[in-house]
């Protein structure tokens, strides 16, 4: 009896491991431009940019960074950038990440605050967590250009 229980537990263990792998591989097999669609195309991305901008201005950790920023223009640039990064048919007309952040002296805690605000915005916009991570994975390397401190 005990042996059966042991085998059942072993089988359950292997099954969970396989299930985890399948869940993880799903997005890998998805097409390249599907992120743009999965974020809700231009409208969905504009909503994410809007919520993100609201979160930035309400976040005591980073809001001072935007004291001299035209937020209407910022929100449009953010939306365009997300769209381009997601593989959508948009054009980003802003400065490079390095040029736009050079004078700000941001550290990793600032960068991560931005990530958390974006995550909260995507939660509010109803973007599934796995889809959020596909966008974040493309944005993460920007840390190298944005964080200068």
């Amino acid at each position, binding site marked *: 009896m005990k042996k059966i229980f042991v085998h059942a537990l072993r089988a359950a263990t292997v099954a*969970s*491991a396989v299930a985890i792998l399948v869940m993880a591989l799903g997005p890998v097999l998805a097409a390249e431009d599907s992120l743009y669609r999965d974020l809700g195309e231009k409208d969905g991305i504009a909503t994410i940019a809007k919520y993100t901008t609201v979160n930035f201005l309400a976040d005591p950790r980073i809001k001072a960074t935007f004291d001299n920023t035209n937020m209407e223009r910022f929100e449009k640039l953010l939306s365009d950038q997300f769209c381009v990064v997601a593989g959508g048919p948009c054009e980003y007309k802003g400065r490079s990440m390095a040029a736009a952040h050079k004078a700000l002296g941001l*550290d990793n805690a600032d960068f991560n605050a931005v990530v958390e605000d974006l995550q909260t915005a995507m939660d509010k916009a109803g973007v599934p*967590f796995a889809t959020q991570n*596909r966008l974040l*994975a493309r944005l*993460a390397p920007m840390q190298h250009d944005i964080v200068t401190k």
Partner: protein
Amino acid sequence: MRQPILIFALVVAGGLSGFVAPARADADGSLLNKGMAMFDSGKLLATGGVSTVEGAGGGGLATWALITGYGTRDGVSVNAHYTYVGLSDYSLQSPGIAIGLFDRVELSYAWQAFDTQKTGGALGLGNGFTFHQNIVGAKVKLFGDAVYDQDAWWPQLAAGLQYKSNDRGAVIAFVGGKSSDGVDFYLTGTRLFLAQSLLVDLTLRETKANQFGILGFGGDKNGDYTTQFEGSAAYLISRKLAVGAEYRTKPNNLSIAREGNAFDVFAAYFFSKNISATLAYVDLGNIVLHDNQQGVYLSLQAGL
């Protein structure tokens, strides 16, 4: 000896969890404010990992390249943990503390109490005979960033060592163990495949430890270091919840008992950057006299 340390660990954990990391101090803040501001809690949730059975930052069985806690490269962090493992014929309790310095260096301490329960009696040691072990660890991040370097092929790489000292030298010598203390050296690579919501760790460990050191170091069958493997795969279900599996090979140095490999399936829940809980089903294989040592692994971590 067990109860006071357990109570101490819980008090420390409770005390730590009472703190809320303050906002970063401004230029004219007091020294205390500036000091507290070093605890920047600036890393992303879950990227500090949890506490391994040996007290290092990682999963449960596998030590990861991530530096424990939530301090960024501009900050520090400290956490305390308590881990309980209840197996078919044995149990393990382990409180510990760890600090992360500038997302570069990790220092850790864990105390383990391995209770042989009735097996101790069967071996003539007495029921409830308990092995105690102190583990002091240090880890240094070498290069790479598991989170930011999404465009690179390399993982975050770290190297470390763990000094383990066991208080049951006579019993260890009796079962064929060579020493009651030893040093493990490890090299670990951890990579967050963020687009797949998957964290993967691979670790190579040079060790002489029998049953993690509970049965001492080296043995009559083999007294030298062997290279062992440990690995984790964790799937992130949400910002707060990760599920995964781990595997760890162990040396086979003693002729009195075959030593099996270990694996677990776990779920880790991050309530906040201050508190996390890990629940696992763990299988440690054969441990002296008893096959199939399986059971529950529960670990709580509190920090700032």
